């Protein structure tokens, strides 16, 4: 239990430390490692103890959906993956892994504020990381389409229409995201 929790902490620390692209890159990387897909071998590359795919698509969608309905940081729902490893400690380990980069780097940034601004190489690193993350997010979006519709044409069209609706409303009016999620659920209930 302790070893597994430590490894979970390490895996989520790795995920968090490379997530310069925002919260969704965390989800994309988590999905890649923990969700049972056809290409299971790919997920084992980054796992030292084969803490690999433990979630099926439905469970991942449940955790993903819950993240949009909770207040505060959406990352808290990721710790629900810890339930699969039976215990409160894995849940805590996951959350600690996600926030540890910030807890370490933020005090350091505050202390080295003036010197850090001159470290232009870091800008290059962030730029390269952000471009890679855009690519990963594009792949992740296509993966969501597959999870939601199985690539069936008529359902894919409705899926894209619902996504476009939330995209447009969010961009234009920025309402409370829960309203958009409830709307999507209603449309999904009747149309998908």
């Amino acid at each position, binding site marked *: 239990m302790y070893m597994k929790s430590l490894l979970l902490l390490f895996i989520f620390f790795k995920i968090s430390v*490379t997530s310069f692209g925002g919260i969704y890159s965390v989800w994309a*990387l988590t999905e890649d490692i923990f969700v049972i897909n056809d290409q299971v071998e790919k997920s084992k590359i980054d796992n030292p103890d084969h803490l690999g795919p433990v979630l099926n698509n439905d469970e991942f969608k449940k955790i993903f959906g819950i993240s949009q309905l909770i207040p505060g940081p959406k990352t808290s729902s990721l710790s*629900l993956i810890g339930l699969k490893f039976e215990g409160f400690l894995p849940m805590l380990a996951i959350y600690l892994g996600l926030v540890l980069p910030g807890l370490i780097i933020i005090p350091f940034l505050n202390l080295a504020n003036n010197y850090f601004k001159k470290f232009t190489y870091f800008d290059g690193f*962030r730029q390269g990381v952000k471009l890679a993350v855009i690519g990963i997010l594009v792949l992740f979006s296509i993966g969501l389409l597959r999870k939601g519709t199985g690539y069936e044409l008529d359902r894919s069209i409705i899926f894209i229409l*619902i996504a476009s609706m*939330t995209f447009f409303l969010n961009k234009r009016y920025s309402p*409370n995201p829960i309203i*958009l999620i409830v709307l999507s659920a209603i449309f999904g*209930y009747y149309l998908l």
Partner: protein
Amino acid sequence: MELNLLNIFLTFLKIGSTSFGASTSEIIIEVLVEKKRWLTIDTTRECLSMSGLAPGPFHVNFVINLGYRLKGVPGMCTALIGFALPSFIVANLLWILFSMDNTMHFIKENPGIINGIVAGIAGFLVNAIFKLSKGVITSSYFVLYIAFLVLLMLLFKFSFFGIIIGSGILFIILNIFREKVLD
């Protein structure tokens, strides 16, 4: 209100239970700057931009930064716990709700609900991609570069971590090269 750890915890507990998505930053500024006057607007803005530099969840980093400015390392830990606790509790409650037999049965009979939610989130995701692209894609060559990376991941099954770190290192090298050529 006195600036001590208990009050920091209670304040961020309240913020964490009432903020959803983009409104988080606004609520934090309203509470810490206008109501409690614990920080100035300039300090808060500085924290906001600094938090964008650090990896990890943005709002979490923002809260950590603010907590650090208020009361050092104890402050940042207290602020984080207060901010994250409500979401943690609600997430678990929702998990229990969605795992109950009645709910599970309803969802199994109507899979469109969850698929609809996933579609809705995909819309947010596309928005995030656009926001990310705005500051970073300054040339069409970058679009080609991204397409190339997508091919590497899709066809040759390159690891996501490898792509991210490799891309970061590549751009450090390109920046160094560009500086030397311009000099």
